[in-house]
């Protein structure tokens, strides 16, 4: 590995893995990043067009295909632009440079006099008659990147930094076949799965006659071990049968779970893997004042607007899978293990799905389709999960408890800070065959994935557990809970959502105790200039006024975080009205994401994060009964409605700069939840520390106050 290269270019060092000139006037640009609603394809096109000096229309993007695109792992963690885009940028800059070098040496131009204009090589501004396409055969891009090509400074950008229209939006606005759900293939069969209620459950009996009675058209029941599927040519029939089939299958090995585990405090009594990262144990002076507070949230569902879907076809010994997975390469590896196939015999191709916001059912649905396809050679198999299946069986974001302990100095500032975190795993994506529902149901299931998760930055459950504030000693105490009642994995923000809520709530509580304004209090312990700039900007945007009395039923709150302490900075002010329930009326956000590729695309991400966070803060929590997740529809798992969406204003700070791009997709969520919590405390004169901030919790807090 060439350590001089940025990570993703080091992993995929050949330039022709990124850029090619296959036909006159066209550029093929490959990215391992996939579109999950975040606009990444548009941004990648801008990056490539800018650095290659071609118009964006010339670019054909190839995305997320194990036969065709670089292996960039998962499209996750707000890393697409910060890492994937930076790798692509460098590759494109080098390709451009190679063509100019070649033109200089082959045709006797001074290299410094050459430039590129929409793919044509120009000499002192005049045409040379040469371009990418005329010289493509002379330049072998099957070579390793050096990583030394200079990239353009922001001051020269023509395409990057300007809002671009989304390349994928028209198909969606005009109702085209935009999603994997819309794929159709000749001879395709539709399939649904009768899900194993949980890992290790075994089929005791199947009332096949009862299942078949629900079928108005021919169906096939396919069973292998505890994997049971319904297949048929008529989707309506297959769906109707699937709706009743679970009632006609009896299972062994399904111990009831404790529904009280839907609230997070049960975590405190569980066995855990404990780690401490950060400063050594505090040695507080005897006179110091100690304080602490504890914050919780329930499990949260991804609640993608449609259930997961996949298509698979196995023919001539090769398996093709079409999926809205976030990682075509890791899925391919997991499928190879599950199906005991040579990885070379599998191709996984990304096709868009509904926004996922993390690890939902996409990979599991792909595995379902793949398992069936290899048992039905030559027949395309389409699996579309049922809505209740997505809610009931996707991995949810774990319930969490975060307790903040601080020792205060004489001025009421933390001298010693501990963020103590109890959480199940935030990361259990399918690896070498583990954590795919189909794999667990087939004979010879893989062992349960070990309960491992790094506590170190940027962390998962511990994400943003370390405040960015300048406290003399900071540490994280991580309790990783091995056994959770339901399967858990990553959701936008991971642990940062609750950790930021806890830290920023506690900061407000400390400011109140010190008798200081929350904005001024934060700035007094925040040296990072970019952090200060977003806090100051959002205060200005919102017309923040210190000393507005609380307890009046309306309130404002501020919160700040830098996502993962290494991605975009975001500060948020929320305004709420609280009667019996909370209404968020306005939200302001200022964010510094370094160089921004498409300002409108970045703001769309900030806005989306804010709306989703309002929903998390006010409404969301997965409900459990003894059988597992019981909130399996939109009534029992309500999310924000149009009439509940606040007015939102977002501004980018320092967007035209030579600061490297920073991931922005998850930046606004944690600060929004926390700002709402602080606004509610301001409005009520009482602090709510358990999410979501429902009517019941508001009433309880008022009674207590």
């Amino acid at each position, binding site marked *: 590995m060439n350590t001089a290269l940025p990570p993703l270019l080091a992993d995929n060092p050949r330039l022709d893995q990124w850029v090619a000139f296959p036909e006159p006037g066209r550029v093929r640009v490959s990215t391992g990043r996939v579109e*999950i*609603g*975040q*606009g990444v394809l548009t941004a990648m096109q801008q990056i490539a067009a800018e650095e290659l000096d071609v118009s964006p229309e010339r670019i054909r993007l190839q995305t997320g295909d194990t036969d065709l695109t670089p292996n960039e792992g998962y499209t996750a963690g707000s890393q697409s632009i910060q890492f994937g885009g930076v790798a692509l940028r460098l590759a494109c800059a080098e390709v451009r440079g190679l063509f100019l070098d070649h033109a200089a040496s082959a045709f006797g131009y001074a290299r410094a006099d050459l430039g590129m204009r929409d793919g044509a090589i120009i000499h002192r501004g005049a045409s040379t008659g040469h371009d990418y396409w005329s010289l493509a055969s002379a330049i072998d891009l099957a070579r390793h990147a050096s990583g030394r090509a200079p990239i353009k400074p922001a001051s020269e950008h023509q395409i990057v930094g300007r*809002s671009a*229209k*989304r390349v*994928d*939006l*028209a*198909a*969606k*606005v*005009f*109702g*085209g*076949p*935009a*999603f994997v*759900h*819309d794929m*159709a293939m000749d001879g395709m069969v539709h399939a649904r799965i009768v899900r194993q209620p949980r890992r290790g459950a075994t089929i005791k009996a199947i009332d096949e006659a009862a299942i078949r009675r629900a079928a*108005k058209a021919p169906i096939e029941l396919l069973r292998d071990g505890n994997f049971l599927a319904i297949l048929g040519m*008529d*989707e*309506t029939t297959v*769906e109707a049968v699937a709706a009743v089939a679970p009632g006609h299958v009896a299972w062994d090995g399904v111990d009831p779970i404790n529904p009280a585990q839907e609230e997070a405090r049960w975590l405190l009594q569980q066995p855990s893997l404990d780690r401490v990262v950060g400063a050594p144990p505090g040695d507080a002076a005897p006179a110091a004042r100690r304080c602490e507070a504890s914050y919780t949230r329930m499990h949260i569902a991804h*609640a*993608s*607007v*449609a259930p997961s879907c996949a298509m698979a076809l196995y023919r001539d010994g090769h398996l093709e899978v079409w999926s809205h997975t976030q990682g075509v390469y890791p899925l391919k590896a997991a499928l190879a293990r599950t199906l005991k196939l040579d990885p070379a015999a599998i191709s996984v191709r990304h096709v*868009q*799905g*509904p*926004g996922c*916001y993390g690890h939902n059912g996409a990979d599991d649905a792909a595995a379902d389709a793949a398992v069936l396809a290899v048992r039905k050679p030559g027949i395309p198999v389409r699996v*579309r999960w*049922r*809505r209740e299946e997505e809610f009931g069986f996707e991995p949810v974001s774990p319930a969490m408890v975060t307790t903040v302990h601080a020792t205060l100095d004489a001025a009421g500032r933390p001298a010693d800070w501990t963020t103590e975190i109890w959480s199940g795993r935030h990361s259990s994506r399918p690896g070498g065959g583990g954590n795919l529902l189909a794999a667990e149901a087939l004979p010879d299931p893989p062992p349960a994935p070990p309960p491992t998760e790094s506590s170190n930055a940027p962390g998962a459950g511990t994400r943003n557990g370390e405040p960015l504030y300048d406290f003399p000693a900071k540490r994280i105490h991580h309790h990783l809970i091995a056994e959770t009642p339901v399967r858990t994995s990553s959701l936008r923000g991971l642990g940062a959502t609750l950790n930021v809520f806890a830290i920023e709530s506690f900061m407000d509580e400390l400011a109140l105790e010190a008798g200081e304004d929350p904005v001024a209090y934060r700035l007094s312990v925040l040296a990072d200039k970019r952090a200060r700039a977003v806090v100051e900007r959002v205060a200005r945007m919102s017309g923040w006024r210190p000393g507005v009395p609380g307890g009046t039923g309306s309130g404002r709150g501020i919160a700040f975080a830098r996502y993962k302490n290494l991605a975009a900075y975001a500060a948020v002010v929320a305004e709420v009205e609280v009667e019996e329930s909370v209404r968020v009326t306005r939200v302001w956000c200022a964010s510094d994401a370094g160089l921004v590729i498409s300002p*409108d*695309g970045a703001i*769309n991400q900030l*806005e*989306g*994060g*804010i*709306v*989703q966070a309002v929903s998390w803060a006010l409404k969301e929590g997965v409900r459990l009964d003894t059988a597992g997740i019981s909130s399996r*529809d*939109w*009534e029992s798992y309500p*999310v*924000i*409605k*149009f*009439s509940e*969406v606040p*007015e*939102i204003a977002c501004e980018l700070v320092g967007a035209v700069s030579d600061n490297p791009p920073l991931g922005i997709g998850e930046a606004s969520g944690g600060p929004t939840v926390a700002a709402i919590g602080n606004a509610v405390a301001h409005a009520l004169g009482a602090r709510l520390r358990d999410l979501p901030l429902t009517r019941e919790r508001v009433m309880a807090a008022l009674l207590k106050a």
Partner: protein
Amino acid sequence: MPATSLIVNGNPVSVAADPDTPLLDVLRNHLGLVGTRFGCGAEQCGSCTVLVDGEPEKSCGKALSSVAGKAVVTIEGMGTPDKPHPLQQAFLDEQAGQCGYCLSGILISAKALLDRNPSPSRGQIAAALDDNICRCGSHPRILRAIERAALLMREGAAR
């Protein structure tokens, strides 16, 4: 199999399918109109909203027999890239979408609103969309786009 006749996007069609088949399945699987999306199958999310005789209806919950002889309008019938409906143009202008899965149903609900109320307030637009779930949080843009479309349509009507 008995055939059911209806009008889809202005064209008479005859569908030989079980009369209990959900309209959504008829559109997607029998007529190849995949722009109407499946979201929940329980009339809770609005992704599959179509117009039936001008009224917004969740097509997942409408049996084929219930739309016999009626006029159904889907997203494909609203406009095309060459001839977009003002709502579609406004959604592109405002970049109103992220994953876009919910947009077909939202555009149809918005059309139903503007067809009966050319000058809705922001609150009326939001209320008309409360049966449509958007999970990405594109709501602010969607609301802006519908206001923009309403303006475009009023200006068009005034000319």
